[in-house]
C-alpha cells in the first residue's frame, strides 16, 4: 500500500505515510494457479501455429542468408 493515514486521537491533523514497494506488506496478486491453460478457440490456435511456422521458416532463411554472406555457402554461389 502506498499510503496509510495516521490519525492522532487528540488532534484532527492527518499524516500520510508513503512506503517503498519493497518495504510494504505483500498484497495478494491475481494468480494463474488453479486456472490451468488459457482457453483458445481453434482459430486462435491455428493462427499461433501459422505464426510459429512463419517464424521458423523466416528464421531459417535469415540464417541461410547470413551464412551465405559469411562465405560459408560461397561455393554454391559459383
Amino acid at each position, binding site marked *: 500500500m502506498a*499510503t*496509510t493515514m495516521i490519525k492522532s486521537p487528540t488532534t484532527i491533523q492527518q499524516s500520510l505515510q*508513503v512506503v517503498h*514497494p*519493497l518495504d510494504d506488506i505483500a498484497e*495478494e496478486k491475481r494468480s*494463474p494457479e488453479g486456472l490451468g491453460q*488459457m482457453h483458445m478457440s481453434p482459430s486462435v490456435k491455428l493462427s499461433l501455429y501459422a505464426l510459429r511456422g512463419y517464424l521458423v521458416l523466416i528464421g531459417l532463411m535469415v540464417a541461410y542468408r547470413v551464412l551465405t554472406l559469411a562465405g560459408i555457402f560461397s561455393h554454391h554461389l559459383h
Partner: protein
Amino acid sequence: MNTLESTPQEPLDPRNETQPVGITVRKPWQRNVLTFLLVVGPGLIVMAADNDAGAVSTYTQAGAQYGTHLLWLLILLLPTCYFIQEMVARLGIATGQGHAAMIYQRFGKWWGVFSLVDLLVLNFLTLVTEFAGVSLAASQMGLSPLLVVPLAALALMALVTTGSYRRWERITITLCLLNLTWLVLAFTSHPNGGEVLHNLVVPNIPGGGLTSGLIFTVIAIVGTTIAPWQLFFQQSTVADKKLRFADLKFARLDTFLGACLTITVAGCMMLIGDAAFRHHIPFSADTFDPATMAVSLGHIFGPWFKTGILLLMVDAAILGATAISLSSAYAYGEVRGWSHGLQKSVKDAPGFYGTYIACVALAAALVLVPRAPLQLIIVSVQVLAGVMLPSAIVFLQLLLNDRELLGAQFANKPWNNVVNWIIITVLFVLSLVLALQVITPTLFPK
C-alpha cells in the same frame, strides 16, 4: 486484493515494528510526488536501455544517410512503444509474475519453450552487439578493447550482484539520465530548426524514393525502438520491485516519461547523424559505424564532441547489456522455477545470477575473438528482432485479454485492443516486407 484504489488499513502504530516503515508527509500532492519517485524505475530504465549500442548505430546511420527526413517516424513510435510497454507494466502489477512465467502457465510448455528460445537467442546476439559497441568506442578513444571489454563485463556483473534491487536501480537510473547529454550534443551540432520541425510533423520519403536501403532503415528503426526483450524485462522488474495495484497510475507515468525520453534521445542521435549528412562526411551503409562518424564530427565540432559521442556509446551499451542480460536471467529463472530477483543474494539465487554472468561473459568473449563476424551479427539482430516482434506482441495481446485471470480491471479495454491490433498489423506487414527483402534482395531498387 482486486481494487486499484488504496484500501484503508488499520492505522499505523509507530510502536509496532512489524508494520512497514515509510516516510510521513502531510499533503496529498506530496504523497503523490513521493510515491511516484519511489515507483519510477522499470519504465524509465526499459525505455532508456532501448537506446542501446545498436540503436545508436541505427539512428545515427538514418541521420547520416537521410538527414532529418525520418524524424516523423519517431513521433509515430512514441505512442506505439508506450501502449506496448504499458500492457506489460499492467500485467506485471496484476500478477506479480514475469512475462515468461505467464506464457508458460497460460499457454503451456510447448509455446513457452518457443518463446523462451526465441528470447534467449535474440538476446544473446543483441548482447554481442552491445560489447561490439564498447569495443568500437574504446578503439576510437585509443584504448585497447582487450582491456575495456573485460572491464565492462566485470562492471556489469558487479552492478547486479549486490543483492539490492534499489542499488541496481539507482545506478542504472543515473546511467539513464546521462542520456540527456545527447540533447546537448544535438543542440551544439546546429541543426536546421525549421527543417527539423517540418520533418517531425510531416511524414515524407527522402529523395531517391522507396529503395531497399530506405525500407531496411525504416524496419531497423522500428525493430530498434520496440524489441521483444523489453516486454520480458519490464514485466519482470515490475514484479521484482513488488509494485502494488495502487502504483499502476505511477507505473504508467514512469513508462510514458521513459517513452518520451527514449524518443527524444533517438531524435538527438538522428540529428547528430544529420550533422554528418550536412557536412558531407562520406557515407557507406556497408561500413558505417557511429564511432568512426564521431571521429569525423570531432574534426568539425571539436574533440570534446567526439569523446562525448564515444562515451555515450559506452553508456548506451552498458545500459542495454544489463537490461538484456537481466531479461534473459529473469525469463530463464522463472521458467526453471529458480529463486530469482535482484533483492536476493548470489548465494540465494545462484541460477539467476549464473545465467546473467554466463550471458555477459560469453558475449564479451565472442567480441574479443579475432575476425568474429560482428557486422553480420549486428545485421542478423536487426532482421531477427523485426521478424520476431509481432509474434511476441501477439502473446502479450492474448494475455491482456485473459479476463479469467485479470478480470475487467486489468484486462484490455476494447479501445486498447483496437490500437494494439493496428500496431500488430503494421509490425507484421513490416516483418513480411523484411522477409521478402531477405528472400529476394533485388525486390526493391538499391
